[in-house]
């Protein structure tokens, strides 16, 4: 019994409902959003600390024992993601204060972001696989609204594709759930894990496992199911794309981790090999996309795809170093993708375009923006003092331990391509000859930079303070490595 676990879900939910009641009071909406996100951040910090000191925290909703009722489980993996997700969305909303515009604000923008947050946090914390589906839907409904809010031509077109893809993947999710319920007779993840272990993961269960991989792959954007992602993420404004890039695909990634480390880990020759191959191709596809485009937003979006590939590969490594690397990289990637999209948004606010060829010489009047973009680019590529380095080193180490030399090669090559793609933005947009004179600039970066300052500081902390962060990550990796810790915490046998 510990109601602390539900606070990261409950606070945004109550806030969203409150915001629905006052659609036209925009100042008040901003104030409520800030207050609630501060509370949510504090609650998730307390949660991480509590999990670190006292082990996995569970909450049996409605006081029903686990296999029968819904249980919320906060292990270290979930609570780290909850904390990072809350902070990143806090910064995205601060960015939105000055960039999203009155039209969108008065049509429930803040309420939808809080609903999105409810869904994401719920997906991280739930211990029941049908409840995971419900929270996926909460998150997706809010994201449908956010992708179309404002109603520009490209948003309408892309939201149609996005909704179509996600409705199909949700239907597949329900199908997969029906199969697993038909086979195992339970929906509690710890209980499913027990029963799958008893029956030894027969052929049909492996088929269901691959069905789950397809479902979560569609949500998370792995090859060959990433096709909807570049277009859909390109349509909405930067404040919304930053939220999506930092949170939505990561939930799919989290679900893959959860299912393939907790439930379907008995036939790694089949499932984990498939994951490994797909992850490798995803990394390459993302990197190729990132170097191919001359559009700031497109480049950043393809970098999401690369990162998803890198993180997913951790599942296939299936050793503690690999898991720790993936978790570190996942946390880092949420922070740095948020920062990069927000910086891209600030660049868009100045120039009014995403086209790299139409920018140049921004460093003269926006030195802070320029050097921050440089630092973010370094962190993304994994240059030592910054956060991307630790995760990648651990992944390389895990890859070498598991003799996955091809993966190590692909990952190091992809780092190079990723670095090239973001340096292309930096060199062309901030140096070169000046394109826009002071009068031609579309707007100012006033108030748009400080959210990314905070995110970059967090990224630097993740890199420089690795000593401090690593025990937390290691505890998360240990739980992933040994499902019995999770099962015992939930079922208390």
């Amino acid at each position, binding site marked *: 019994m510990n109601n602390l676990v539900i606070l990261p879900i409950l606070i945004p939910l109550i806030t969203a409902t409150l915001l*629905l009641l006052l*659609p036209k009071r925009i100042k008040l909406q901003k104030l409520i959003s800030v207050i609630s996100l501060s509370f949510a951040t504090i609650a998730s910090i307390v949660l991480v600390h509590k999990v670190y000191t006292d082990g996995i925290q569970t909450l049996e909703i*409605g006081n029903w024992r686990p296999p029968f009722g819904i249980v919320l489980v906060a292990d270290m993996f979930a609570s780290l993601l909850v904390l990072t997700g809350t902070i990143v969305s806090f910064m995205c909303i601060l960015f939105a204060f000055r960039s999203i515009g009155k039209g969108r604000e008065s049509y429930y923008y803040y309420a939808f972001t809080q609903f999105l947050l409810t869904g994401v946090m719920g997906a991280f914390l739930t211990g029941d696989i049908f409840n995971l589906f419900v929270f996926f839907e909460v998150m997706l409904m809010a994201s449908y609204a956010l992708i179309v809010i404002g109603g520009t031509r490209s948003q309408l077109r892309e939201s149609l594709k996005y909704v179509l893809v996600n409705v199909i993947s949700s239907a597949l999710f329900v199908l997969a759930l029906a199969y697993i319920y038909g086979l195992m007779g339970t929906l509690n993840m710890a209980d499913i894990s027990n029963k799958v272990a008893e029956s030894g993961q027969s052929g049909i269960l492996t088929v269901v496992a691959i069905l789950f991989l397809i479902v979560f792959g569609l949500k998370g954007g792995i090859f060959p199911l990433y096709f909807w992602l570049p277009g859909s993420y390109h349509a909405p404004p930067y404040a919304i794309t930053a939220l999506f890039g930092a949170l939505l695909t990561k939930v799919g990634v989290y679900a893959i981790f959860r299912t393939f480390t907790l439930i379907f880990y008995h036939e790694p020759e089949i499932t984990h090999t498939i994951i490994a191959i797909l992850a490798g191709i995803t990394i390459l596809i993302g990197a190729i996309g990132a170097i191919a485009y001359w559009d700031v937003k497109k480049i950043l979006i393809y970098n999401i795809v690369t990162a998803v590939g890198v993180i997913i590969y951790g599942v296939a490594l299936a050793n503690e170093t690999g898991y720790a690397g993936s978790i570190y990289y996942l946390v880092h990637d949420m922070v740095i993708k948020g920062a990069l999209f927000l910086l891209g948004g600030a660049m868009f606010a100045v120039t009014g375009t995403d086209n790299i060829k139409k920018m140049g010489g921004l460093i003269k009047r926006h030195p802070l923006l320029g050097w921050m973009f440089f630092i973010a680019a370094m962190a993304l590529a994994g240059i030592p003092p910054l956060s991307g380095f630790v995760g990648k080193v651990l992944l390389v180490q895990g890859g070498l331990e598991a003799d996955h030399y091809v993966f190590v090669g692909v990952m190091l090559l992809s780092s190079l391509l990723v670095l090239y793609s973001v340096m292309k933005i930096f060199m062309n947009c901030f140096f070169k000859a000046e394109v826009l004179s002071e009068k031609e600039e579309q707007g100012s970066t006033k108030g748009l930079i400080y959210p990314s300052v905070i995110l970059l500081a967090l990224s630097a902390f993740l890199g420089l303070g690795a000593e401090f962060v690593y025990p937390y990550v290691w505890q998360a990796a240990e739980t992933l490595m040994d499902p019995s810790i999770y099962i015992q915490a939930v079922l208390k046998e």
Partner: protein
Amino acid sequence: MKVNDLILQTVTTFLAFIIFIFSIYLFFAGHYTPGGGFIGGLMTSAALVLLLLAYDIKTMQKALPINFLTVAAVGLMISILTGVGAFLFDVPFLTHAFQYIELPILGKTALASTLAFDLGVYLVVVGIAMTIIQTIGESE
């Protein structure tokens, strides 16, 4: 030619009440027999839709000056707060209580706090259904 829907309007004023009462019955029946907040809410919105068909949106808004989006939000708030109420008794979120109570007319009645949760669901369903219908009806 002027269309006269006198019969439709007369029958509707009468029928809407029967449908409304039936929906309330369904809402309260939910704990022991088929029914509940969702179907009750849908039936209530069916009664309101029938009124919309017989009259027009402006008449409806005069007769029922309610912002249905607010209804949905209030319903959501009620459902959440019944869950949060459990915090006061130091039990997990959404733990419900159940008791038999002697009511003046109905006699011994089973009262569960899930009823408050269901009331929230009912209001959300009515609010959302009516918001959708009114929004589509109003847009040109």
